[in-house]
């Protein structure tokens, strides 16, 4: 009987290490430089759309996180009472310093993702890939993989690699599955650069 107990205990121990200790060691966590609420901007009071700030330029290139100039359009001086807004104006807008945002969805160097093809031609919504990020009140903690330097969002929050929501994880498998489902035929260099 005993060897089996040892075996079960060993498996349990390994599972605990793998499930909790391993991600804690693998990822480095850091807070965003500034508190930001998407909901304030996109909700009833703000009424903005994603594309009001996150735009593509005329050549189709996605511009990513807007620069402080974009923020300054409304927040040249504080319009509310919040501490973070005051910080934004004082530390970034007035001295015209870019905010060192940590990007959740930054892909590895060799991945090429055209937003225009997916949004304009493919008629996909931002939420399809980014989830309900646009209606969040706070910015999540940013996890960086200590080995690869990638954001944890690339692998997904679930350490086993399974995800219940479509926007969790941005691995190649996901791209390929969706392309396959939609009869897209691609070569490697269609999405790699």
């Amino acid at each position, binding site marked *: 009987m005993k060897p089996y107990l040892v075996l079960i205990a060993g498996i349990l121990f390994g599972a605990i290490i793998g499930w909790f200790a391993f991600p804690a060691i693998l990822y480095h966590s850091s807070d965003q430089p500034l508190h930001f609420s998407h909901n304030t901007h996109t909700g009833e009071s703000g009424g903005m759309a994603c594309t009001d700030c996150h735009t593509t330029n005329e*050549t189709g290139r996605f511009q990513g996180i807007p620069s402080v100039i974009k923020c300054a359009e409304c927040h040249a001086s504080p319009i509310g009472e919040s501490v973070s807004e005051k910080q934004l104006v004082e530390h970034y807008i007035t001295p015209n310093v870019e905010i060192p945002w940590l990007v959740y969805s930054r892909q590895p160097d*060799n991945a090429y993702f055209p937003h225009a093809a997916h949004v304009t031609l493919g008629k996909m919504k931002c939420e399809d890939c980014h989830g309900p990020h646009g209606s969040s009140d706070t910015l999540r903690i940013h996890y960086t993989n200590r080995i690869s330097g990638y954001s944890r969002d690339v692998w997904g929050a679930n350490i086993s690699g399974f995800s219940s929501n479509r926007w969790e994880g941005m691995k190649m498998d996901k791209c390929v599955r969706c392309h396959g489902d939609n009869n897209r035929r691609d*070569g*490697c260099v*269609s999405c790699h650069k």
Partner: protein
Amino acid sequence: MDTTVEKKYKFGMVINLDKCNGCGACAVACAIENNVPPAVQKMNKRNGLTWLTISTVSNNEQYPQSETVFVPMFCQQCEKETPCMTVCPQNAVDVDPTTGIVGQVPQRCLGCRYCMTACPYHARYFNWWDPEWTDGMKQQLNPDVAPRMRGVVEKCNFCHSRLHSAKDKAATLGNREINPADYIPACVESCPNKAITFGDLNDTTAPITSLASNSNSFRFLSRLGTEPKVYYHSKKHWVRAMAEKAQTRSRQADGIAEEEFHG
């Protein structure tokens, strides 16, 4: 979801050897476009990194009959039985079904160099050294092309980043098909003599299609049956005969192209 089947392109090139003067602008443009790292001190012609080499071939006649052509050589984008693709043990090489471009993913590459052995054009290159850029050069890296690491194979992919850009531009306008004017590889663009014609070989109206089927156009090692998509063009008979015929070769001390040839 949109399930429109994409247009099938077949990108190719025709290089007019009679126009090429061997200036090397294409090779420089290629290196800059594709983030090919600069040579390190110990590099030589044989283990350096280039995606495009230019060989000198002469007819070995006495003056005034002596003639020389310059042959730019790079990945010939074999269409059939692509030698490098079938041999790669881990699918790091593929032929894009929508463009016919032979792609190489360095991040998947093991560095076994079997594809280099398989390539009859010697158009694949291995990173024998760690790539090193000076700080100034780092600023100039092309953000659309991922730099490669040491120990992997790389090669010409018809400036794929430019195809990405062209597709992006078309998509912004709501188009599925690219504007041919938006997709021109760096070597084609930089050639001062306009010796290289680039385009879609499936497009019967494109200038390349008629040029490729011209009787003065030929492909190297066409008898191997790999259907390369890079054509060469010359009005000179001896050049076309040189390409057709395997030659009796003699060993020479230097590895580059001076060749005994009687046209």
